[in-house]
């Protein structure tokens, strides 16, 4: 989701980095351009964010439903590791009504997914969302996009999924990495950790090795994450977390058991 003001400063860098790893990417805006952007009949601005999302999902349902099984909504300041998202999705059936992201507890009894961290709708979930607006079961009752969409999901009986990895570490993140991974002194919990549906963890166990997203990632940081994810690596290093193997590297003996 983007807008004319951000194409040069933000969206351009998304396109140059993780946008390339998507099967298909659409840049939603209020104005059609050669970027290319899709024109939605909605004005820019935070108060129009949910309208924009509704129109975007309706557009995709109308024109691109057969082009994919899963639909990711992200912002122009989100960074996504598409391969890691695919890895999670590969375990689920897109014909089931499912909804993935960073689960928050407040307001909606089954919880809702953070908008900034990016969320994914299965094909069936997208159908139900569009249907909900068609029948009036879902309405634009609030401008808070992620929470309102979560309400529609609940109404249309779309299930929220736990996207944490095998070790209970989060994959979607509504803030940059340094908000979570740094060992800090104990202090009052920041709001976003109070919102977390699952018990939040700070320090190295905050985040899965196979991370899916970070938010508030601008320009330099987009390329930095691209470099750290796909390029810079420790030669010959045996990662501690190896989800495909039944055996993990044993910390004590330092060798695979």
């Amino acid at each position: 989701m983007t807008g004319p003001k951000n194409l040069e400063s933000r969206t351009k860098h998304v396109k140059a980095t993780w946008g390339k790893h998507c099967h298909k990417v659409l840049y939603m805006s209020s104005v059609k351009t050669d970027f290319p952007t899709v024109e939605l009949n909605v004005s820019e601005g935070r108060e129009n964010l949910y309208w924009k999302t509704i129109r975007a999902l309706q557009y995709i349902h109308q024109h691109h439903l057969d082009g994919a099984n899963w639909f990711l909504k992200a912002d122009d300041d989100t960074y996504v590791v598409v391969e890691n998202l695919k890895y999670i999705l590969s375990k689920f059936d897109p014909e089931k009504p499912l909804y993935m992201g960073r689960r928050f507890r407040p307001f909606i009894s089954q919880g809702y997914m953070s908008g900034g961290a990016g969320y994914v709708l299965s094909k069936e979930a997208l159908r139900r969302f569009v249907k909900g607006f068609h029948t009036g079961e879902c309405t634009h009752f609030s401008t808070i996009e992620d929470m309102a969409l979560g309400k529609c999901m609940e109404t249309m009986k779309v299930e929220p999924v736990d996207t944490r990895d095998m070790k209970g570490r989060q994959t979607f993140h509504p803030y940059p990495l340094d908000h979570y991974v740094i060992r800090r002194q104990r202090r009052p919990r920041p709001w976003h950790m109070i919102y977390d549906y699952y018990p939040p963890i700070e320090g190295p166990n905050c985040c899965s090795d196979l991370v899916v997203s970070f938010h508030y990632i601008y320009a330099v940081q987009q390329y930095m994450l691209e470099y750290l994810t796909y390029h810079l690596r420790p030669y010959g290093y045996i990662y501690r977390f190896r989800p495909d193997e039944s055996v993990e590297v044993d910390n004590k003996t330092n060798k695979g058991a």
Partner: protein
Amino acid sequence: MSERGSFMKGMILGGVFCLVLSLLGSFSPITESKMEDHHHHHVKAASKDELQQLSESRLQELNDQLQISCVIMVQPKNLVYWAAALDTWTKHCDKAEFYTSESSKALEAIDLNEKDDWVRLRKALKHAYENAGDIRWFFVAQPSTFAIIENLKYLVLTKNPEQPFYLGKTVKSGELEYVEFNGGIVLSYEALKRLVNVFQDENKCPERQSALWKLSEDKQLAVCLKFTGVFAENGEDVHGKGLFNSRSVDSLISESMDQNPNNVVKGCCSDMAVTFSSMSPNQMQVMMFGVYRLRPYGHDFHDILTFYPPKGSDND
């Protein structure tokens, strides 16, 4: 008359000789700049082909013997950096020794009780050499440098530590080519041995410099090593990209955005980079995750070496 004549002849001959020499001397910068290309040393990591030519047993031998002794020069005034280095990259050294200018109540280190940077470095290197044990490679750094020791091992894997190697990010200052301290300094056992020996020569390698001629300790190091026949060499990957960086990742990416806007990441830094510098403690924690954990599922590398994670560490 003949004496004066010979004297005059001598003077003229001498004068002409001197003139010719100085003319030749004025030509030398041109020839020197051509020579410079030959004198600019590079040390590249082994290519895949070169590595594949090694037998399995030889490779195993090299893997087992390849150990790095890290020499980290700290000061209590940089306590947060010291603590960060301790909690991050230095855990991957086979041996990590911290040398401080004065003792700190918060953290343990070898107290050299010395304010002068150059004297302190000499003492630390001498101590590291004398306590080397079986270790044949030495990596000297400041705590604001972040190093990926596995990639350092990859660089020196096929190099013989009984040969003098002095590697890092090389910079030229006038006639002197030296390794920037900021980017980390790599010394083979032989280089360190020669260095410790030349420390005893007060003419070639004085301990205390006069205030007038005070060179930074990394330049001093280069001067002393040069006397022993050891020259600074730039550490590079198989593509010729520098592996040692005296700046942070952010800074290098920013620069690449200006210089290579259509190819920012590839135009920036090597995939097998060994060091980055001017990293804050928080940035180092982020790097630990970014280097040792973050990766895309399904990308497998068939690396020829194997390095296991260090014991008792949770951020890698």
